[in-house]
Every structure is written in structure tokens, then in C-alpha cells.
């Protein structure tokens, strides 16, 4: 047995059968991190001592209660934009380089109560702004499958940690694809739940109308278990929705007979890597063999989504990031007066992509441009949402690639922000419409890089997309492949 390579449900079973203790599992995960993280650079902060203490406590609880929570004693990696009490939380930014949160975000409180072990905080694009994890103020993360490729972003550290067996599962956040695109690049499962399904309280805000927390896991069952653990209403997040949390993992039957799956014709356009299209077409055939009914659909406003997203997201970000003024927490530079202190603190504290987005967001909200950009974008956002509403009258779920290409080369897109933005083309509409969507591996290209398939559902239909993903996963073995490190 190689404990770090276990899935969450395998590890949970072994813990209950006393084949493995949480302490052994946790120690083995830290050995794996020590052996591999100089190549991958998934983690910003490691919590070895506290993790081993949590593991010891979990072993005690396991002795007393065999029916305990499936997360009990399981080592999880956390993206470094979740506030964690007493654990440095940087958002991969110099401006929060020394920030130690005075409280846990709701999701962390939940997994701590469940008894999960926190291995550490993973790398990301600064303030979750990016698609490659290269915008970190500290260092870039590398793709475990090939060191010259990006792991995707912004949750690149969490995705790489799961793929490299440096944790059993991880948490990420997704504002425009930041869970699904790195999951696709690293060959793992990543789910962005419906907006409002998981509390955002204590998640460092980027674009508040789209930010959402979700699981990043080694298989679909793990994804369902993690979602069960983190979903639910939170009075501290006024956008969280008060609806019961279904037992997602119990609903995984693999039966998709008669389920109607839509393939949007606008998503198969030039610029897509031919191997990605082939893999996806094959995956669709397999789903059809498993009993699904395939139908071509149209999402006519797809081509406008990137423009809408980069107006709405930057506008919200420019407002959210106004709080980093060097007064109450975070980096403070020394200026000759108050205004200069603000300006220097922000100049020195933020990296280039964050500044670019603050500038863009400030511009589109500024007097004289608000109607032309921000209001216009919100109107087109309504049209994009309507496209999905109409499609979902005909189909139960929508199948697309997660990204137009497999993981691109490090440095390939850093000089051209617009090219970087275009790599989010298949994921961002989903955030604009608030829908749930999942990425899972559906093949490999000729460079042995994973290819991701995205499954999009109706609002709060996570069970449906998990079911489709599970059916596919049961018929394939892509999820069992591991990178050589």
C-alpha cells in the first residue's frame, strides 16, 4: 500500500478497518511532499506539526466512533485564499505576506469539525487572478505531468498537490474556471458548485458575484464526499442559499439511461487542439453507449463571455481590493502623507496582473464609462444566462471541453494578458450564469498531458453532473494514471 496515493474514500475505509492510522497516513503524505515538492512547488506553507497533532486526535476519535465523518483523519490541502486561524494566509501576494487570520472561514470550520487534517496552504495566482499559477508573488507551481508546463490556475497548487499525491484531496476556489481548468491540466476531478451552494465567508474576495469554493479530488466519489462536507447554508454569507444538502455520494449509481446531454456547437471552434476535440468526441460516444441521449444545442452568446467576464470580474475586484490600504493589516510602505502611503503600499504590495485588473476594473466603473462597459456587460451577462436557461429546457446537462488545449508551456502567455484570458473560454460563462460544473480527465494528448471534460448542470443539480461524471469514470481508467515524479 502507498498511502499518499489513496483516494479519500479508500483512505477512509482503511482508517475504519484499522489497516492504517491517520498518523501513518499523514506522515506518509509529508514524506511524499518532502520527496517531490522541490520539483512541483505546490505549497506556500506547510503545517506538519499541527497536522500530526490533528492526525493523533483523529485516531483517538476513530477508536471511539466507527460511524464518524468520512473526512476524519484525512490530510487535505487548502488553497491559500481560505482564512485559516493561526495559519499564515497570503493569497500569494506580498501585500498579505505576513497575514495570520484571526478566524477560520466557514468551510475550514466545517472540515475541522469533521476532523480533517490540514497539510498546508497551496500556491495560486495572486488573489486568484490567473490561469497558470505563474502570477504568484512567491514562485510558480509546475505541472506534475511535465515540469515545463503550467498546472493551470488559479488553484494550480491544489491541483498539482492532488495529482502528485501530496495530499488526499484539496479545496480550491473558482471565479472563472480556477478549479476546473487546473483540474483539467493536472488530470484530476474539480467541481465548482452552484453560486450560493457553499459559504464564501472568510474566503478572500476576488469577484463576489462569481467566487465559489469547491473540491479538487482524485475521483468522482471523493468529489461528492467533499461537497457534502462543505455545502450548506451559512448565515454569515448573505448570498449562501438555504436549501438542504443532498447525500451526493449515495446518489452515485452510474445509471444515466435516458439522461439528455447537450453538446454546444459554439464550443467547437478553431483554436481547439485537435486531440482535445477527439478525446471529447470519444467521451461523448461513451456516454451515449452508457445510455445517455446526445443532442446538439446552441449557446449563441458564448463568444461574448470573455469580454463580459473581464469587465464584471475586474470591476468587482477593483472594489474588493480597495481594502488593501496598508492601515489595519497587510503591507504598509512609508509615504510622506496618507495618500502617498496608500499609493506606495499598493504599488509595492500588488503584482503586475493584480494591478492590471484593478486598473481595468477602476476604468470600467469610472464616470463616463460605466454605462458603456459595466452596465453593458451586465446586460450581456443576462443574455448568457438566458442561453443556458433555454438549453436546459431541452437537456439535463451540457458536455464541453474544460479548456481548448492541454497545459501550456510556462511563460508562454505571461507577456500577453489577453491570450491568457482566452484560455478560460469554456469555463467563464458558467460563473457568469452561476451554474455548477465539473471537470474530469477524459484522455491524454501525445505529450502525455491530461485532457479535461467539463460537465455543466442546472442550478443546484450537482447530483446530476456527479452522476454523469461517475458513469464516465466507471467506464474508463484515466483517473488511475499517475504522473512520474
Amino acid at each position: 500500500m502507498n498511502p499518499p496515493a489513496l483516494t479519500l474514500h479508500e483512505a477512509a475505509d482503511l482508517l475504519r478497518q484499522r489497516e492504517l492510522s491517520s498518523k501513518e497516513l499523514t506522515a506518509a503524505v509529508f514524506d511524499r511532499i518532502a520527496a517531490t515538492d522541490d520539483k512541483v512547488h505546490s505549497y506556500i506553507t506547510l503545517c506538519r506539526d499541527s497536522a500530526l497533532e490533528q492526525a493523533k486526535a483523529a485516531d483517538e476519535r476513530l477508536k471511539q466512533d466507527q460511524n464518524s465523518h468520512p473526512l476524519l483523519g484525512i490530510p487535505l490541502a487548502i488553497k491559500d485564499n481560505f482564512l485559516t486561524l493561526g495559519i499564515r494566509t497570503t493569497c500569494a501576494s506580498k501585500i498579505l505576506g505576513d497575514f495570520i487570520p484571526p478566524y477560520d472561514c466557514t468551510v475550514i470550520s466545517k472540515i475541522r469539525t469533521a476532523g480533517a487534517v490540514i497539510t498546508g496552504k497551496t500556491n495560486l495566482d495572486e488573489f486568484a487572478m490567473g490561469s497558470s499559477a505563474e502570477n504568484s508573488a512567491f514562485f510558480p507551481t509546475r505541472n506534475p505531468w511535465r515540469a515545463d508546463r503550467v498546472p493551470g490556475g488559479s488553484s494550480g497548487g491544489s491541483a498539482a498537490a492532488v495529482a502528485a499525491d501530496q495530499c488526499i484531496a484539496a479545496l480550491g476556489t473558482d471565479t472563472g474556471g480556477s478549479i476546473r481548468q487546473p483540474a483539467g491540466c493536472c488530470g484530476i476531478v474539480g467541481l465548482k458548485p452552484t453560486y450560493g451552494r457553499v459559504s464564501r465567508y472568510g474566503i478572500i474576495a476576488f469577484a463576489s458575484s462569481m467566487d465559489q469554493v469547491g473540491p479538487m479530488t482524485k475521483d468522482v466519489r471523493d468529489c461528492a464526499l467533499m461537497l457534502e462536507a462543505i455545502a450548506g447554508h451559512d448565515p454569515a454569507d448573505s448570498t449562501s442559499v438555504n436549501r438542504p444538502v443532498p447525500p451526493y455520494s449515495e446518489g452515485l449509481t452510474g445509471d444515466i439511461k435516458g439522461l439528455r446531454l447537450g453538446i454546444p456547437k459554439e464550443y467547437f471552434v478553431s483554436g481547439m487542439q485537435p486531440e482535445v476535440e477527439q478525446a471529447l468526441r470519444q467521451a461523448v460516444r461513451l456516454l451515449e453507449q452508457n445510455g445517455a441521449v446526445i443532442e446538439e444545442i446552441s449557446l449563441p452568446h458564448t463568444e461574448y463571455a470573455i469580454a463580459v467576464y473581464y469587465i464584471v470580474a475586474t470591476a468587482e475586484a477593483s472594489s474588493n481590493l480597495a481594502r488593501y490600504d496598508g492601515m489595519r493589516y497587510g503591507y504598509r510602505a512609508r509615504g510622506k502623507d496618507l495618500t502617498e502611503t496608500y499609493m506606495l503600499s499598493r504599488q509595492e504590495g500588488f503584482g503586475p496582473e493584480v494591478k492590471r485588473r484593478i486598473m481595468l476594473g477602476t476604468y470600467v466603473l469610472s464616470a463616463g464609462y460605466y454605462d458603456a462597459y459595466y452596465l453593458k456587460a451586465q446586460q450581456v451577462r443576462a443574455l448568457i444566462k438566458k442561453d443556458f436557461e433555454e438549453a436546459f429546457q431541452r437537456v439535463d446537462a451540457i458536455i464541453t471541453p474544460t479548456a481548448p488545449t492541454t497545459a501550456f508551456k510556462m511563460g508562454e502567455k505571461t507577456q500577453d494578458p489577453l491570450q491568457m484570458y482566452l484560455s478560460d473560454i469554456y469555463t467563464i460563462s458558467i460563473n457568469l450564469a452561476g451554474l455548477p460544473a465539473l471537470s474530469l480527465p477524459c484522455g491524454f494528448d501525445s505529450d502525455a498531458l491530461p485532457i479535461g471534460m467539463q460537465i455543466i448542470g442546472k442550478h443546484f443539480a450537482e447530483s446530476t453532473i456527479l452522476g454523469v461524471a461517475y458513469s464516465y469514470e466507471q467506464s474508463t481508467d484515466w483517473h488511475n494514471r499517475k504522473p512520474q515524479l
Partner: protein
Amino acid sequence: MKLSREEIQRVAMLARLRLTAEEVERFTEQLDKILQYMDKLNQLDTSEVQPLAHAVDIVNAFREDKVTNRPNVDALLANAPARDETFFRVPKIIE
């Protein structure tokens, strides 16, 4: 060009960001290119479309006006760049 250097400087001031001369050049060029890309939205007639701010229907979430958390002053001040007993120490604000 949609954007001038002066406009970039004005926006930077609104955002309280000091930019180097090199950043002004680079952002002027990059934001200009991005804004030109965004002009494709003008292909759509949206005169009859209600703007959408939130994708999921949400109503105001009210609760009773009751104190539920007790601020721990030391914990909140622990991250302050400068403090003076139980206060944040900040640059002089009023001349």
C-alpha cells in the same frame, strides 16, 4: 488608441496605485488592446435587456439586530502594521 497615458494616470490615481513610467507605458498599451476586444459587446443590441448583477435569485438576508460576536481586540490588532495599545496607528489624516 482608446486610451491615453493621461487617462491611465487618472485611473491609477482613482485606484490609489502609483505606477512607474514603464508601467504607464505597458498598461496603456495592454489595456487599450483589452478594451478594443471588449468593444465586441457593442455588436449586440441590449436596449431591452435588464442588467444582471447576480446569477442566482437572492433576496435580502435579514437577521435580528443582535451582537453575535465579541471582537477580540488583540487578535484583530495582531496584523496591524503599527499599533498603539488598543488602536491602529496610522499616518496623520487631518492637516
